[in-house]
Structure formats: C-alpha cells, structure tokens
C-alpha cells in the first residue's frame, strides 16, 4: 500500500492496477483456470443474444411440439417442458446470475465500506454502535433473512438482490472497519488532521482508498456465494419468475422430470456449479497471492 502525504492523497487507480496485475501474474494454475472460466461465462452472458442458437427461447417462446427432446445436434442441451432450447436458456440465465452477483456485491460493498470506514476512523461510541448493528445482521444467516425478506417483498430478481445485499454488507463493514482503524493511526492521517482537513475529506479521500484492497479481494471471493444463495432463493420460488431464464428457477421447474428427462435439471445445475467454482478458485488464488 502506498503511503503519501495529505497533499498528494494516494490515488486508487495505479495501486489497484498493480495489485490486480501482481495477482494475475503470480497466480497458480487452478486460479488461472478460474479466471479463464469466469471470463468465458461473462462473455457468454454478454453475447447471449448473438450466440444462443434460439434467442427467443431465452424468453417466453414456446414450442409444445418440441417439448422434452433429448440433447441432439439441433438442441445440444435438449429442450425443456414447453419445448424451449435449454442451451439458450442456460446462456440467458448467465445474464441473470451475473447481474444479481454484481448488483449485490456493489450495493453491499458500498454500504459496508462506507459504514466500515466511518466506524474505523471515528472509533469510540460511533464504532461501537455501528459494529453492534453489524453483529446483529451477521447473526442472521443470509439465506434465512433473505427468505423472510423475500416473503415480505414480492418475488422478483430485485427482491433477491435486495434480500441478499441486506445480509451481505456486514462482512465488508467489519473488514473495512478493522483495516480503516489501523490506517487511521498512520502519519499521513495525523498530518491531515493537523492541517485542518475536514473529517469527511480525511475519511473518504485518505483513509478509504487505503483500506480498499482487502475488501476488493473479499468481494471477488464472494461472487460464488451470492450466486449460490440467489439460485437457492429462486429455487424456492422467491426470485425470478417465468419467462425469465434463471438457473435456480429452471431446476425447480424441472425437478419432477429428473428421472425421465435429466438434461432439463442437470444443465442449469452444472451451470451454477461451474460459475460458483470459477468465482471460488479465482478468489482463493487472489487471496493467497495477496497474502504473500
């Protein structure tokens, strides 16, 4: 981490780029596999309308005459109960999952980092209050609080995002608070204070950028967890609904067909598994790299 005086506040960009590069260059092969997989998944999600063999099947199209066809040259992953191409729906499902993951991590990250950096810099009773509230939310298992919230709100993708974000921010608050507390004891913060720099400026221009690295690593580690939780909520019928392509929902709708038409459930399930795996090995590799 760079230490610089209050005048030349350490800027985030070069530091971030350096850590990212260092992380990628020194990562072991497994983490590289994760990075490549994740890049492919993101690409598939972005290009879904172009590469899906039957783009309309990602939505509300139905072809009753082609229902439950096994995998073939025309339908690599077979077709579902209303005749939609499962491969197309899996590709569109990547969009939903990644959208949820990014939205949750951004919301939870921003809320957690802001509260954490304030708690860490202020210390005293401010820190105590924020940390106790954080503890309360941490005590609620993510899935359970999300369940309760998803009942209160109407089932939708937005509900899933809100429900998971509410249970996810405390981790970042706690992590940022501990880092920010130690950053706040450093010389450049003292000198800023002596120069009469207002507290909000110190917190957000000086302490915040220097407290970000561990949180960013943690965020990349958590993508897999968010995707698994989101899939579970959708599987329980509390998230996306027809005709949206969502992996958890696809498993739920096809579960009674598992014995007869395995592809309907297996393909979305494996998609969740691979995506979570990619996030997990990449995050693990990054963390191991940065810990050294």
């Amino acid at each position, binding site marked *: 981490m760079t230490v610089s005086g209050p005048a030349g506040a350490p800027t985030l960009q070069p530091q971030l780029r350096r850590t990212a590069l260092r992380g990628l260059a020194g990562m072991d092969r497994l983490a590289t596999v994760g990075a490549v997989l994740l890049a492919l998944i993101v690409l598939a999600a972005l290009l879904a309308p172009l590469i899906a063999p039957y783009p309309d099947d990602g939505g509300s199209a139905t072809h009753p005459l082609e229902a439950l066809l096994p995998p073939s040259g025309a339908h690599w992953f077979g077709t579902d109960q209303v005749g939609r191409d499962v491969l197309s729906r899996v590709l569109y499902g990547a969009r939903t999952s990644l959208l949820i993951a990014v939205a949750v991590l951004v919301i939870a990250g921003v809320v957690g980092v802001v509260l954490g950096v304030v708690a860490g810099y202020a210390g005293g009773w401010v820190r105590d209050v924020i940390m106790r509230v954080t*503890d309360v939310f941490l005590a609620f*298992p*993510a899935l*359970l*609080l999300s369940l309760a919230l998803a009942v209160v709100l109407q089932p939708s993708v937005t509900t899933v995002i809100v429900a998971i974000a509410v249970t996810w921010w405390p981790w970042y608050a706690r992590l940022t608070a501990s880092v920010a507390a130690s950053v706040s004891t450093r010389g450049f913060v003292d000198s800023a204070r002596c120069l009469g720099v207002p507290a909000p400026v110190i917190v957000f221009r000086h302490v915040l950028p220097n407290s970000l690295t561990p949180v960013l690593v943690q965020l990349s580690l958590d993508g*897999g967890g968010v995707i698994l939780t989101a899939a579970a909520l959708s*599987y*329980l019928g509390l998230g996306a609904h027809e005709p949206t392509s969502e992996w958890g929902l696809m*498993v739920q709708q096809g579960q009674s067909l598992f014995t007869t038409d395995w592809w309907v459930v297996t393909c979305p399930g494996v998609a969740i598994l691979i995506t979570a795996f990619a996030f997990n090995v990449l995050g693990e590799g990054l963390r191991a790299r940065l810990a050294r």
Partner: protein
Amino acid sequence: MLRYLTRRLGQAVLVVAGVVILTFVIMRLVPGDPAVAYAGPRASPAELAAARARFGLNDSLPVQLWSYVRDLLGGDWGTSLHTRRPVRDDLFQAFPASLELVGAALVVAIVVGIPLGIAAARYKGKLPDLSIRISSMLAVSVPVFWLALALQTLFASGLGWFPVAGEYDANLDATSPLHVYTNITAVDALFTGNWPILGSTLAHLVLPALVIAAYPAGVIAQMTRAALIEESSRDHARLERALGFGETAVLTRFALRPALNPVLSLIALVFAYSIVNGFLVEAVFNWPGLGRYAADSIRSLDTPAIAGVTLLVAILYVVANLAVDLVQGVIDPRVRSR
C-alpha cells in the same frame, strides 16, 4: 479472563436483543393480517376483533414490542397460526430432527475433510494436492438443492439403494413404536433398543447427510491444508526435520495439533451455517426438521412461526460465535485483549 468473559457475554446479549428487535420488525412487515390468518376467512367481525385483541394488534408498536419481549422471556414464543400449537413446542420437535441430520453430516465432513487436508498438505503441489483442492472447491461450489435432487434421483428413485424421503419408515410406528425422549430419532431408537427404527433412520439419513456434508467437508479440507502448510513452515518443523523425522511424521505428529485449532473454530461456525443450508435439503428429502417447518410457515404466512425459526437460528449463530471466542480465549490469551 473474567473481564474478557463478561465483555464477550455482554456483547452477545446485546446482539440477541438486536436480533429480537429485527425479528419483530420483519414480523410486522410480513404481508397479510395475522388476525385474519388465525380466525380464518369466514370469521365474523367479532371473531376478528377477538383475534386482534388476543394478538395485541390494537396496541402501539412499542407496546407490542415490549409484550413480545416479555412473552419471549417468559418462554412464550407465540402460537403458530398454521399448526395452532405453541411455536416453542413445534420448534422443540423440529429442531432435534435438524440437529440429527446436521450432526451426521458434520461427522462425515470431519472424517473426510481432515484426512484429505492432511493428504493435500503432505503432497503439496503434486497431483493428490491438486485433485483434493479441485474436489474441495467443487464441494463448496455445488448448489445443495441440485445435489440433493441429483443424489435422490440416482441412488433412491433410480437404483433404489436408499429410501427416497422422510426420517424413517412410518409403518414401523405400528410394529415397533418409538419412545420419545430427546426427539432425536436415532438417539431415542439407540437407547431404547429399537433396532428396526434405528436401521430405518440411518438408511434415511445417508443421502441428505452426504449432501449437507459437501460444503463443510470442502472448507474443512481447505482449512486443514492451509493451517498445516503454515505450521510445517515454522521453526519447530525445521528442528523436527533436522532430527530425522519424515515429512508425514512432522505433519501428523507435530503440526497437526496446533493446526487443528482454527479448524475447530471453523467447525463451530460451519455448524450454524449447515443448519440453514440444510433447509433446502430437508425440503427435497421431506425431512421433518426446521427447514420443512420454516417452508410450511412461509407458505402459510405464519408470522409467529417464521419469527420463531429466525430467532432460534440467529441465537444458534450467536452461541456458536461466542463458544468459538471463549474457547480461543482460553487457548490463546492474546485473543482476550482484542
């Protein structure tokens, strides 16, 4: 130590108080009128008013919160709108079943995870390490509900090796009725010598326990590996190697014990996590535990029951965290000053 203990206990009590308030808020947010849900759709206005008065819905929110807290402290967790029984009794029945399932899963996870972690550390960077790392990563990345469906389809519906769903064969209730003491069926059956029910319960346990074990087994293997690698790079390991101990002996005879310290804390935390993760598995295997109870109460908008489950699990989390901190405080004095 005493100061650490009281401070940590005080924090835990504060957190539980916060959890109670948050649960109350969620309860008030749940759509639908509990009075209507309780009295039924054809209730007369008088019956509705009676139900409303019974649940104290006419009082102001702080008054309602206060009476909620008072009832909780007095052991009254409310009455389920769905089963019409005290929520506490329902939880007393459902929780042991979840405990049985998660307990079995954790035993599997520990028995599988720790040896795999040792093997990975022993062959660090070689093929066994890579394959163990990949499989443990897959184990933590697999969606449990999907794994549950897959194993159920393959080994129960398909091959018929294991029963499809339930906790034990209900026909056995007639031929060899179970005396209930702990509500943990396997334990009750074992201590009353009820072998048919014990056998049936164990057979029913295999698949759901394996599914729930996947995540803890994966993280335990990863944590054991990481802790062993760190421990075996310390000075004492160098001395042991210099004395002529082989790599396996250094790991298992010397490094393992200190390395298990973080693994133990992990197990306590993963236990609370697995209870909730098990909800999805219970739904698939129709296991009569907390998960099924929670699913039923959510479906019927049974507010007191939802609040009861939420509160119970949150308290479990707090207790697990507290236990970890206290044990570590005993083992490692440095923790106390934090």
